[in-house]
């Protein structure tokens, strides 16, 4: 499966291949685990739908990069992480953060520039932080945090903590030189880190066929002697299994791993629009096709088939989460903005004494 998928991806055939339409095999999973994963994915989705609406309606002032459609990746990986692990991400990071258990209200407050936000209103959507939950930070410089994650992994090795670093990045980031340097360094120094490439085929407006001669980013892992997996990123079970193997190997042996996940974002590059036919190679039919591979629907389908949950139980998950999100938004909206003194307070460490 893995090698077939890798080949199909590399050759550019994957988007029309049945290999990414296979049913989820949940036979090895408990009802409790599946319900948790489904709930987490729904929370991320509903939060992003809310963010998209609020951005569209002008309540969120800054750009938001939404990952709706990609929830299975962060959820599948995070189930194998602990609070002391070190997760870094990039501009499309809401799912990576929320899958670690971050309070939705703090994320909303951050998007609104409020002092109760994750970075006290100093970062916005593109600079997020929740280290107590293992999220060391995200920034919108493409590949900017990849070497930082390598260093956090190096620190884990030196501290003999058994923790791993995680570097989330996209297929576009693989075109940055520092990613090549980081893979080489992690391999050469023996660093416990999981590189996660979310290959959603688009870097901003450009399809991967316009940017790379081979469409599987995992080729760079092979070139650097790093163990890799290429999986269907809309299948939370596949993601979770691959992540489990690579993460446990990193923890045990101080080696890097590379997980390439094939996926697609429902929204366009930035904000609430779908970026269909606006000069980019992204058609309505393609978006529809990928929406039929929605990772949440696929998991729901498998769960219903196995009768782990009923329709009405799933419906009540949605109701609870929607109400949680409305409450969180209202709270965040009424929270205060940062004081003027915050501008200079945080530039250096000592000013805060």
């Amino acid at each position, binding site marked *: 499966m893995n090698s077939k998928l890798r080949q199909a991806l590399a050759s550019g055939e994957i988007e029309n291949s049945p290999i990414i339409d296979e049913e989820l095999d949940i036979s090895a999973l408990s009802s409790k685990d599946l319900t948790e994963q489904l709930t987490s994915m729904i929370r991320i989705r509903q939060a992003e739908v809310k963010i998209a609406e609020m951005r569209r309606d002008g309540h969120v002032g800054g750009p938001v990069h939404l990952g709706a459609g990609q929830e299975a990746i962060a959820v599948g990986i995070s189930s194998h992480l602990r609070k002391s692990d*070190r997760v*870094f991400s990039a501009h499309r990071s809401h799912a990576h953060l929320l899958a670690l258990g971050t309070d939705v209200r703090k994320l909303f407050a951050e998007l609104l520039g409020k002092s109760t*936000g*994750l*970075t*006290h*209103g*100093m*970062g916005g959507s593109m*600079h997020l*932080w929740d*280290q107590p939950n293992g999220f*060391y*930070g995200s*920034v919108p*410089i493409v590949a*900017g*945090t*990849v*070497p*930082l*994650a*390598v*260093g*956090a*992994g*190096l*620190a*884990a090795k*030196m*501290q003999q903590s058994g923790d791993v*670093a995680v570097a989330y990045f996209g297929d576009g980031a693989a075109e940055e*030189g*520092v990613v090549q*340097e*980081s893979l*080489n*360094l992690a391999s*050469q*120094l023996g660093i416990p880190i999981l590189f996660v490439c979310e290959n959603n085929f688009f870097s901003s407006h450009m399809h991967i066929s316009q940017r790379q001669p081979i469409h599987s980013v995992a080729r760079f892992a092979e070139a650097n002697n790093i163990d890799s997996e290429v999986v269907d990123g809309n299948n939370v079970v596949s993601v979770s299994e691959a992540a489990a193997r690579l993460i446990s190997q990193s923890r045990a042996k101080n080696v890097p791993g590379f997980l390439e996940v094939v996926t697609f974002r429902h929204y366009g590059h930035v904000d609430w629009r779908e970026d269909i036919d606006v000069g980019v190679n992204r058609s309505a039919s393609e978006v529809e096709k990928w929406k039929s591979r929605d990772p949440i629907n696929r998991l729901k389908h498998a769960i219903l088939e196995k009768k782990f949950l009923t329709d009405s139980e799933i419906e009540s998950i949605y109701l609870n989460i929607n109400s949680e999100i409305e409450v969180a938004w209202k709270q965040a909206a009424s929270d205060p903005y940062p004081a003027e003194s*915050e501008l200079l*307070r*945080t*530039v*250096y*460490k*000592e000013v*805060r004494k």
Partner: protein
Amino acid sequence: MSTEKDMTDYGTAIRDAFAYLLTKHPEVFVIGQGLWSPWYVGNSMTKLDQEFGIARIIDTPVSESACTGAAVGAALAGMKPIVVHPRMDFMLYAMDSIVNEAAKWSSMMGGQANPGVTIRSIINRGGEQGAQHSQALHAWFAHVPGLRVVMPSTAADARDLLIASVLSGDPVIYIDDRWLYAEKEVLGPVKEIDLHSQGPKIVRTGTDVTLAGAGYSTKLCLDAAVELDKQGISAEVVDIRILNPFKPELIAESVTKTGRLFAIDGGWETSGFAGEIIASVVERIRPELFKISPQRITLPASPAPSSRALEDIYYPKVETLVQRVVTSFKP
């Protein structure tokens, strides 16, 4: 009277700082190119790899960007890394990690996380090395809020400011200069000083003219002051030491007394540090206190040449300073 053998040279003082930090602080490690080589960084890191082990003195692939970024990430994860760039020119590959990540992390993350990483970069001019092995780009980094920029001009500062940089908890660009490695003085015991409290120092008092510089330029100023004294001109020398955050008050006080300011800098003139010195002083004192317009002495507006004939005229010398200052006293 102390003798030559009681003295420590600037390069050895840097090594003393590394040894002190590595001994006393287990979170300290060093990463960069050439660290297992006997010749890359002069005598400033000799055999540290043998003394402290190659797991903590990490010689690296040729990856300035990833290595600097990794140090930033390690700092966020509780370590106190020191990155070494044997030439400042080489660290330009690492600008994203320095300027976008390290400098802004504390502010972007609401002050909840500080990358306490020291990035040691060496100015290594002359020797017909030419344009890409000789740059002094301290002014670039002094422009960026969030970075601390340290340029020691003495052996004592080379040691104690390196220690202070690593313990400061902030990202620090520590810039030493190979032309200072033979400077010697008697060092007292190591002092753990608070970098945040440090700033410019008057290293020679005088009454007629203020000379201000950092790093090797401070040495030029001190040597010029000796010559000027012979010609009856009493020069006060301010060693800037910390370029960012810049504390210009002491220089302004000195110029209030002397009425003459020369800013000497080993960088270029346009948007450079000499201009910053002058602007900061001009803003702080009344115009009538100036007996002459403030002057800059910097590099010519060209990349460093390699030919010895051109290199000889490229870098300001003691005579350059003396001549410029003496001329300014002529009616």
